[in-house]
């Protein structure tokens, strides 16, 4: 079986409204993060991949299967939609159990897998309660449990961290990481980039229905090498350091850190920048604690490529 998710020149229009346009992608196993502002077409891309909407043109293949063939596709794919909606009056247990029955499991297996998935998201104690009485985070968790319950090969998660408190978010990220490490194919869309990009093998940047960039974060960063890069320097005299660095042409922006013990400097020539920084450190005028790239993550790349208006809302 082909282990890639392939989009070949895929377009989707909702009447006259553009969903996505001419998307060509090949996504290997591992964790892939789909990044883009609201309305960029992330959910459309996920719905196309899961066959919930049909492309206006182009071809999609999920591990060799066509999304048109729902019975086959959903045997290997788990989908966690972003919408906070459930069948009425259902308990957490029923939600997972019914889902597994629809996946064609026997009753005994469905019971076993329901217990496993509920424990996986730490909802075992609340399984008998109606979902309507769950907190937003619990509802998010039960959706995640439903998506992984049937042991899919591909997991598509639309905004899976929305509404989760920091603890639950950390647990979910750990779960994604574990599943990705084990060889599952995870496609995650999220606005909380600073957390998701740490575990992502690849990022796909999308804006206005168009694919902007794709690859590992480093690869994508490389693609935008000519763009200024931001570095955070923790030091005792950030204002002095900023003034010194600004005296050279390649330094285009300086911003003091909120705690006053550091400065963000943006440069167009990173080699020159580091060379000059060494000189200043050698002079001993400024005591530097640390120097670190401040934007070698999806969020920053996203800002570069899509513009600050499409921020990480």
């Amino acid at each position: 079986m082909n282990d890639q998710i392939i989009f070949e020149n895929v377009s989707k229009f909702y009447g006259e409204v553009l969903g996505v346009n001419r998307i060509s992608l090949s996504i290997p196993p591992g964790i892939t993060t789909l990044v883009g502002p609201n309305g960029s077409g992330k959910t459309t891309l996920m719905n196309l991949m899961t066959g919930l909407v049909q492309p206006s043109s182009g071809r999609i293949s999920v591990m060799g299967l066509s999304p048109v063939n729902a019975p086959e596709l959903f045997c290997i794919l788990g989908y966690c939609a972003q919408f906070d909606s459930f069948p009425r009056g259902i308990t957490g247990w029923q939600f997972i159990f019914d889902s597994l029955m629809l996946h064609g499991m026997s009753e005994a297996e469905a019971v076993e897998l329901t217990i496993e998935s509920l424990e996986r998201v730490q909802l075992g104690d609340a399984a008998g309660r109606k979902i309507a009485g769950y907190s937003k985070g619990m509802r998010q968790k039960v959706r995640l449990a439903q998506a992984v319950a049937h042991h899919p090969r591909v997991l598509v998660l639309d905004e899976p961290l929305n509404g989760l408190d920091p603890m639950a978010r950390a647990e979910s990220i750990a779960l994604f990481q574990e599943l990705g490490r084990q060889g599952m194919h995870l496609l995650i869309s999220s606005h909380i980039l600073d957390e998701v990009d740490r575990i992502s093998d690849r990022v796909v940047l999308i804006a206005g229905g168009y694919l902007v960039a794709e690859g590992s974060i480093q690869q994508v960063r490389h693609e935008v090498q000519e763009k200024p890069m931001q570095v955070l320097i923790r030091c005792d005299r950030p204002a002095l350091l900023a003034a010194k660095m600004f005296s050279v042409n390649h330094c285009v922006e300086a911003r003091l850190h909120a705690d006053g013990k550091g400065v963000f400097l943006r440069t167009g020539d990173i080699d020159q920048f580091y060379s000059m920084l060494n000189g200043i450190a050698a002079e001993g005028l400024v005591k530097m604690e640390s120097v670190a790239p401040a934007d070698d993550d999806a969020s920053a790349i996203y800002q570069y490529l899509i513009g600050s208006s499409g921020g990480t809302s």
Partner: protein
Amino acid sequence: MSVYKHIYRAYDGKVTPVWTRVFVLARYGFAEAWSSKITIGLFTLCLLPPIVFLIGIYLANNSIARALMGGLDPQGLPINARFFLILLEVQSWFALALTSWIAPRLITFDLADNALPILLSHPISRFGYVLGKLIALLASLSVVTWTPCLLLFAYQSYSSPLPWAAANLQIAAGLLAGELIWIAFLSILGLAVSSWVKWRVAATGAIFAAVFVPAGVGGIVTGVLRTKWGFLLNIPFMMTSLWQRLLGAPESARANFYLPTGAIVATLVLACFICAAMLNARIRAREVVRG
């Protein structure tokens, strides 16, 4: 890449055939339909007429009981096609009431709660989803339509001293066929109307309206254009004519209002196609919100 060890094992155990999963939805639909106390109340009401007809059959076949009731005339209680036609009609209109209550529960809730994307993110098609709901509704309606009718037919066959059943097999076949046609039509109509009305109470009213409003329009067409074909919009009239012919009962409509059976069947089939198109348009997992 974070894939260090491919120890993850996707599920590769046995699964049930795809067609059987329709029955999972049907089972849950059935449970949903009968979880309401109003459904139980309506069901109880639906069983009252068969009890009355049961007493009628008992009295017609038991001279002692008739004597105890004050010497009722056995000719006054003829158990024939007309007797069962009345039963069939009564049960059929109760079935409409039950449909108008149950059908919205099966579809409207899923639509109103935006639960379709979740349900359709399973190895089941849109057709399978609708079929599951249809089976749930058909099963619910069967309990109050052809099942009690045929049970009463069987009781009459058992009670009658004459070889009554053999001589009246058309009644049994007519009861079964007439009720199956009616509940199949009601089910698809109920689901189609429910899929377009998100508010359950309004959906209940809309189902009644879908049956009776065209009848009014048909009456106007018949009156203004002086044509019998206006009755093709009159579902109660058409169904009564069809039931009478299926059971072999005398027809109540005047000769100049006679509708050919083919025209009635064609109208019902056309209505079913329209309902199927309505369902096809609405039962989708499409989400208009773009992320």
